[in-house]
């Protein structure tokens, strides 16, 4: 069974204090790993897709990296508006007949001014 574990559960940073969020996964053949941002009471907002180990993607203050067992979301010089829950999800190969995303519980990031 596919599993995704995110750590830490919650993270408090001061504005400008860089850090990383972790996503560890177990899947029988990775088709893709996805990062989403979710604000309270709203739907997840798509951030990145990573397909293979060694791949990196960047968007503003966010950078996502991927290894064979985990992914990191690096946040450089965060601002209060980066406060949100960050969700990691995987999609397994499963012979081409799997379409679901398996999510972790998320990391609640709070950035104080």
């Amino acid at each position, binding site marked *: 069974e596919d599993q995704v574990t995110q750590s830490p559960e919650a993270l408090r940073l001061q504005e400008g204090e860089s850090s990383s969020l972790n996503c560890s996964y177990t899947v029988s053949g990775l*088709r*893709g790993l996805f990062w989403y941002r979710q604000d309270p009471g709203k*739907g997840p907002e*798509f951030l990145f897709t990573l397909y293979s180990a060694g791949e990196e993607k960047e968007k503003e203050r966010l950078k996502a990296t991927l290894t064979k067992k985990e992914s990191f979301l690096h946040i450089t010089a965060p601002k209060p508006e980066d406060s949100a829950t960050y969700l990691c*999800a995987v999609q397994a190969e499963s012979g081409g007949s799997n379409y*679901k995303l398996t999510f972790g519980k998320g990391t609640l990031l709070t950035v104080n001014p």
Partner: protein
Amino acid sequence: DAGVTQSPTHLIKTRGQQVTLRCSPKSGHDTVSWYQQALGQGPQFIFQYYEEEERQRGNFPDRFSGHQFPNYSSELNVNALLLGDSALYLCASSLGSGVRSYEQYFGPGTRLTVT
């Protein structure tokens, strides 16, 4: 570019009742997936519709059913509501095939409260 839309925004139902939630996919998308998100948890996959057929189903009972229309919009129906069905119901759209077909884009969700 129209994103994924869902209706209604909020809904309050009583145990035992039935509910229907609606979703219109992002422009250009033909596939719709439904997820249930309990408070403090990640979304859980319910099922996916493509070409008006259920293509894959998660571990949810038969009380959860769906439909996809020729214009690609979709409905999620839940019968015999239980208190445990209270959650945020999310619709996600994607392309049915091709290089970008893995990326799913979510709507704002419908908050269902069962009393």
